[in-house]
């Protein structure tokens, strides 16, 4: 083409240099993205564990209630009602036959075109359920109630620990947390086949909460459980508990999907969850539990406990039952790399157990492997403790689109684990690496900003201590120190700073800028310890308290209950509000016709009180 040989050689030299340059540049670009992806992960995980730490806070409130109820208005009917309300288990007034008849008599309208289950279940029923849920249909409440009731009866006769053998089947498949992600369950069934005599499954807890299809998941799992009782096994997770469901969304999901029968379903679910077995053992060699172990665990002792009495609310009320501690350990513990066994401060329950604890327990019972779930892992699974512990997690994209893969593990008679990974993708067009990182990062940063906002007054007070001259700015170092100590989240704050707060012209951080962009259109309230912020910080707790008081899950509480709760909560928080104010406010709220309050009005009440208090202060 008219190029001399030397020109070609020269070009070749240049092209190599150009290639190296592009490669060098691109690898650096990818590393930068990888860094963002990693700290995004850290943010999600820290916030998740901090949320579970909040459970401790709620717990202290309940203790406070217990300690104080005798001092409130003497032994008035209000308080006793409230407390016993919270602790009593609901006794089923109907006999088994009567209850079954009651469900049979529920009329399903002709217009309903979803699956109609018939008991005992057959493959037709499970197939119908799978198709229906793929089409986004809802199973009629009648069948859900019947399914839950049958499941409860079935689980009652199961032991605490199930012993399995691989001798009859080729391989057993073990899945981890699903957390309401139906797409992941369907993907597992698609890749690995449906449960059957030739294809046994163990699901290791945390079927519900967080994801939006928890109801569908448990319906499918329980249906297969009834259909293949010898080949389908479910372990209890820490989220198979009423208190967790109140906080993390399952209760809300049920009440929204089943307005008529939701309450009854939730009652049944409490029983069903508490009756789920605690552990599974394969070939007397492999132990499978949801959380982990501790140095207190003894499997023989665990086989004897009354597992249906092991409820989180007893932990919250600090009712210490010896066996409860062991059960909490099984459901909540996490492995760590250092030796020893220490309390799991992140979770507020259970332990951190080291490789020595694992070794000791496995040896004690002649086991060789522990399989557990409970922690999200980027690759869907992880080995630790010299391969003696496997973590298996089956909800892909758990924190956000693209955050992690899901996985399941298969064990054959030689007990060598084989791992299978997958990732559900919502978009048809494949996102680039950059896009995936941005989506996840955006989500994490929004969550962090919410946290900053919720602790605004504490943060501002601490910032101002460094800002002696009142310039509105402090150094990056000081900013990072304050945020870390107030939020108590161990994150790379200096690396995150560009995403959270502005720098002034002098290179220092304008600290008030980290409270901007919270909810569009919402004005930033004045900086005093105020109820708006308190409300925001404690809104989940308030929802839980509301839901506990609203025992019959009617969505409403009485004015008296509201008054009691508000008095307790505000005195616990040290916010002084007098009786007259509460009564004024109660009257000014637009109650439903029968004089009761629903949750939104409940929340609204706190803001109204604040306005009244401020008005009082201004007038006074």
């Amino acid at each position: 083409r008219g190029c001399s040989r030397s020109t070609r050689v020269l070009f070749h030299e240049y092209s190599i240099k150009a290639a190296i340059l592009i490669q060098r540049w691109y690898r650096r670009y990818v590393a930068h993205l990888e860094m963002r992806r990693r700290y995004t992960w850290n943010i999600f995980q820290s916030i998740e564990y901090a949320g579970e730490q909040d459970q401790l806070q709620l717990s202290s409130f309940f203790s406070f209630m217990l300690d104080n109820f005798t001092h409130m208005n003497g032994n008035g009917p209000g308080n006793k009602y409230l407390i016993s309300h919270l602790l009593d288990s609901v006794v089923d007034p109907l006999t088994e036959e009567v209850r079954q008849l009651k469900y049979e008599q529920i009329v399903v309208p002709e217009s309903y075109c979803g699956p109609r289950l018939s008991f005992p279940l057959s493959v037709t029923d499970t197939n119908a359920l799978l198709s229906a849920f793929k089409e986004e249909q809802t199973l009629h409440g009648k069948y859900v109630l019947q399914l839950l009731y049958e499941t409860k009866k079935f689980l009652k006769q199961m032991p605490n620990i199930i012993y399995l053998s691989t001798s009859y089947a080729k391989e057993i498949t073990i899945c981890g947390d699903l957390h309401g992600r139906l797409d992941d369950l369907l993907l597992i069934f698609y890749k690995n086949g449906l449960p059957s005599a030739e294809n046994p499954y163990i699901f290791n807890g945390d079927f519900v909460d967080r994801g939006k299809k928890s109801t569908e998941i448990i319906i499918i799992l329980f249906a297969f459980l009834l259909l293949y009782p010898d080949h389908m096994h479910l372990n209890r997770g820490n989220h198979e508990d009423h208190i967790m469901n109140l906080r993390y969304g399952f209760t809300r999901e049920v009440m929204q999907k089943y307005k008529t029968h939701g309450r009854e379903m939730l009652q049944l679910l409490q029983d069903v969850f508490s009756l789920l077995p605690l552990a599974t053992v394969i070939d007397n060699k492999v132990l499978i539990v949801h959380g982990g172990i501790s140095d207190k665990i003894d499997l023989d002792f665990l086989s004897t406990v009354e597992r249906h009495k092991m409820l989180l609310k007893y932990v919250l009320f600090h009712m210490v039952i010896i066996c409860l501690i062991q059960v909490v350990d099984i459901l909540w513990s996490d492995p760590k790399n250092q030796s020893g066994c220490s309390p799991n401060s992140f979770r507020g329950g259970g332990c951190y157990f080291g490789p020595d604890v694992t070794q000791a327990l496995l040896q004690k019972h002649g086991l060789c492997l522990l399989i557990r779930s409970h922690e999200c892992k980027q690759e869907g699974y992880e080995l630790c403790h010299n391969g003696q512990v496997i973590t298996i997690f089956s909800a892909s994209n758990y924190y956000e689109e693209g955050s992690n893969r899901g996985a399941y593990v298969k064990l054959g008679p030689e007990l060598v684990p084989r791992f299978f990974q997958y990732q559900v993708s919502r978009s048809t067009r494949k996102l680039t690496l950059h896009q995936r990182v941005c989506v996840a990062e955006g989500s994490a940063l929004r969550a962090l900003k919410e946290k900053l906002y919720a602790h605004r007054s504490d943060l501002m007070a601490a910032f101002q201590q460094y800002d002696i001259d009142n310039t509105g700015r402090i150094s990056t170092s000081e900013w990072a120190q304050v945020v870390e100590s107030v939020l108590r989240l161990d994150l790379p704050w200096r690396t995150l700073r560009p995403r959270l707060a502005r720098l002034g012209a002098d290179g220092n951080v304008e600290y008030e800028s980290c409270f901007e962009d919270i909810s569009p259109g919402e004005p930033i309230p004045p900086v005093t310890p105020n109820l708006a912020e308190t409300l925001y910080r404690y809104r989940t707790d308030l929802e839980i308290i509301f839901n506990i008081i609203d025992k019959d899950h009617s969505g409403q509480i009485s004015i008296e209950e509201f008054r009691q709760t508000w008095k307790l909560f505000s005195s616990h928080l040290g916010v002084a509000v007098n009786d007259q104010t509460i009564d004024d406010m109660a009257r000014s709220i637009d109650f439903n016709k029968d004089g009761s309050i629903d949750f939104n009005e409940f929340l609204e009440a706190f803001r109204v009180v604040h306005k009244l208090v401020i008005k009082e202060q201004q007038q006074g």
Partner: protein
Amino acid sequence: EVTETSKKSIVTFSEIHHFLLSDTIITETQKRISNAFDVFDHESNKTVDVREIGTIIRSLGCFPSEADLHDIIAELEEEEPTGFVRYEKFLPTMTKILLERKFRPITEDLLLQAFEVLDQQKKGHLEPEELTKYLTQEGEPFTQEEMDEMLSAAVDPDKNVILYKDFVSMMTFDDTR
């Protein structure tokens, strides 16, 4: 003599100033390094997997080549390679790299020029096959995964070519966000 003394004190003052400034710079630099290191320190015991060293160094703003990294890692590894690098060893090495401004950034212009060199016929774009050939066969070759990932962001879906000018502007913008 008075002038001599005042000259001396001026020099001394700026020496102190310089010392304080550089001390602050060193501390800030080390804090940046510590932050980046911690992101990859999964077990919270001040060690990272040696395979993550490249990512850490690059995320701190450096543009080393694979050969450069190879040398750095050789320096950082223990006499008996454990597969992990300890923070005590990493910190001085990384501090030196940052303060000496080694492995300087590749600017947008330079990157664009590199693409123009590969575009022999001055078409204004590159075919995916062309770029793949260069980047997977020359220099420090990309793996198939790296190449696929770059193409997914670089190839214009309608014309099925790489409009490298647009690509370079977009990537450098993304990087600064």
